[in-house]
């Protein structure tokens, strides 16, 4: 075992000390995942408009005003949705960044404000878009405040509000009779004040006073409450384009390992270090096992790294963690086998590098490593069955975001393990030959 671990440790050290291998194994896959994530619509939209789904459940002046201002705001691109569920679906599917719900409660207009309840607006966001959620919350507050002048200038709205406030004071339990009398007097005074001024003045004065007055009634009174809800992911649908692109990034990382280890085996042969290994009291089994462990560890490391980035920075969530671990092992095993097979066919380092990179590119292109399979024409989708990329992506996506039943994950796992075994047999035969004297 000591010899096997020595070989594995040595190969991992060599991998980590080769800048090119480190880039293609660990950096490139993350870059690919993020880049394609943005390309396929998961980006932060910085510099462009945030796409919002707007559900207006109220026909009140307040709701209409907020909807109109949202549509006119340069920061947003709004689309009207009939129901909350439809809007939430659009958020889950990554079609819009968030959904804004203007609820039925807005029918009460200023009544809620004067009765101490404030105005409530709901927002639904994808957890992976928390950065945008803050912006949306602030904007909604601003837009809601912007409605107050219109409401104060609206006589009917004001009458309804004063009436509701008077009723609210009369029924309030925590107020003494004196406080109730004073409150009712204030409402009457305010009512006669607002009815005595013209529309334009009312519009100007009420803008600040209404908000400030409401805020001054109680210390914790919030005139506008924007409630932001994070959506729970729905099984079987990517919550954002990053859910699709990170598995792609992972297979690119595995491909990087595959290229690096194929090249390392050829290098051992070309530079004569294989002869030193053959002279040592080890067998081909030790050498192959050591290389296998190194390749597997590197493959698992790259997968862990890519998932860490996905979970930490892009709000991804894993549907079936245990199955994902199995899929990661199977994918790493398959690509390690491919590395062995490639090394068996190549005589020189240049051959391994050229053939390795070429094979990776072709297999990635047809296997959905760059463009997701659902964007491909049917014949390419059929061709993709010949690419280990396809099977690796399928195996990882299943437990990652698709939440595929375990029975349906068996096929890609079996195919990956078969690819791995085949590659190992081909590679081992080539390595075994020099050891058989």
């Amino acid at each position, binding site marked *: 075992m000591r010899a096997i671990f020595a070989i594995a440790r040595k190969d991992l050290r*060599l991998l980590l000390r080769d800048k090119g291998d480190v880039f293609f194994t660990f950096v490139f896959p993350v870059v690919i995942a993020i880049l394609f994530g943005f390309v396929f619509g998961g980006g932060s939209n910085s510099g462009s408009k945030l796409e919002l789904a707007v559900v207006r459940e109220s026909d009140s002046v307040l709701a209409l005003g907020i909807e109109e201002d949202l549509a006119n705001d340069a920061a947003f691109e709004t689309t009207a949705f009939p129901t909350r569920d439809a809007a939430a679906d659009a958020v889950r599917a990554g079609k819009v960044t968030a959904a804004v719900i203007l609820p039925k409660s807005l029918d009460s207009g200023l009544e809620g404000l004067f009765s101490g309840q404030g105005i409530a607006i709901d927002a639904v966001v994808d957890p992976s878009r928390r950065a945008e959620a803050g912006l949306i919350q602030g904007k909604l507050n601003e837009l809601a405040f912007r409605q107050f002048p219109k409401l104060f200038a609206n006589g009917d709205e004001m009458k309804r509000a004063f009436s509701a406030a008077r009723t609210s004071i009369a029924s309030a339990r925590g107020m003494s009779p004196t406080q109730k009398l004073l409150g009712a007097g204030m409402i009457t005074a305010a009512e006669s004040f607002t009815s005595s001024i013209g529309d334009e003045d009312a519009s100007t004065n009420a803008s600040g006073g209404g908000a400030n007055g409401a805020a001054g009634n109680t210390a914790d009174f919030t005139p506008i409450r924007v409630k932001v809800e994070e959506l729970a992911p729905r099984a079987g649908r990517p919550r954002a384009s990053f859910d699709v692109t990170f598995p792609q990034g992972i297979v690119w990382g595995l491909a990087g390992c595959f290229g690096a280890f194929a090249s390392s085996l050829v290098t051992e042969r070309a530079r004569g270090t294989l*002869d*030193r290994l053959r*002279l040592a009291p080890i067998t081909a089994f030790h050498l192959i096992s050591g290389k296998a462990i190194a390749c597997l560890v590197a493959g698992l490391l790259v997968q862990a790294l890519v998932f860490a980035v996905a979970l930490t920075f892009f709000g991804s969530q894993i549907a079936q963690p245990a199955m994902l671990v199995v899929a990661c092992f199977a994918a790493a095993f398959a690509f390690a086998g491919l590395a062995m097979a490639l090394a068996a066919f190549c005589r020189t380092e240049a051959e391994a590098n050229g053939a390795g990179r070429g094979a990776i590119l072709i297999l990635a292109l047809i296997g959905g490593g760059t463009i997701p399979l659902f964007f491909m024409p049917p014949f390419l989708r059929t061709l993709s069955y010949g690419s280990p990329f396809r099977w690796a992506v399928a195996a990882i996506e299943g437990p990652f975001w698709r939440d595929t039943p375990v029975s349906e994950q068996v096929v890609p796992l079996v195919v990956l393990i078969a690819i791995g075994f085949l590659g190992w047999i081909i590679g081992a035969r080539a390595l075994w030959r020099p050891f058989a004297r």
Partner: protein
Amino acid sequence: MMRRNTQSSCVHYPSQSVLSLRDIHRRFGHTIAVDGLTLEVRAGEVFGLLGPNGAGKSTTIAIATGLLAPDAGAVDLLGLGSPANPKVRMHLGLAPQEITLYAELTARENLRFFADLYGVSNARARVDDLLALVELDARATDRVATFSGGMKRRLNLAAALVHDPKLVLLDEPTAGVDPQSRNRILELVRRLASEGKTILYTTHYMEEAAKICDRVGIVDHGRMLDVGTVADLIARHGGQSAVTVERDGAEERILTADPVAEVARQFARANSDRERGEVGREVTGLRIERPDLETVFLSLTGRSLRE
């Protein structure tokens, strides 16, 4: 005329054969690399395999280590059988002609890796000792890629010693290094020999062979032409020494078995001429050319070792 007579007490197996190759044949396609070669390396000696490039030295080494199977013939290491057996080849260490190290690992990491492969106990101490032996302890944590050619050669040699083998095979260990590094490597080989290691040393530099080898085998076209101490080989194949005398602007080349006596005779003749008053007969220059391994090779093959 064994150079290392005074060191014989360090040799553990004075008469035992460490490596024996009997009638080895090996061809690559139509090219005959080794053609019926036989040699025996005795315990504690430095055996030099001297021959030009392409003579079959490296193929012989590969067969001796078990890296290459002979087409015919037998190899035996320490009386244990063929080195193709991992348990047998444990007893040999090879420093190949190429630098077979991992350039991106440090000197210490390289040696530690090979120590782990051989299951060396107390590997850390062993690696430190070897780094000190090859004078690379100050560069232990530097990557091999940053080393000079001579430093790489020394580390290449240290990697062959990591498991403390009985037989060390050094295939052209000074190829491509500067004279200073070459001297350090030769000094290292001498030191290993003095510590009782048996060494098979291939080279095409006759000076090296003459300097450090107890016995030398002359190889050409895959055949062992002769084996013996340097003195024996010269005595057998070197022919006579040449004394070249410059007199009166002319040179006279005299072949003799006893160059010292010949020089004395020439001076005596010059004195006699002077006494007789013969002007212009005085010796103005004198040069002695003793036969060496180059002469031996020329005599055995009809061509120069350097061709």
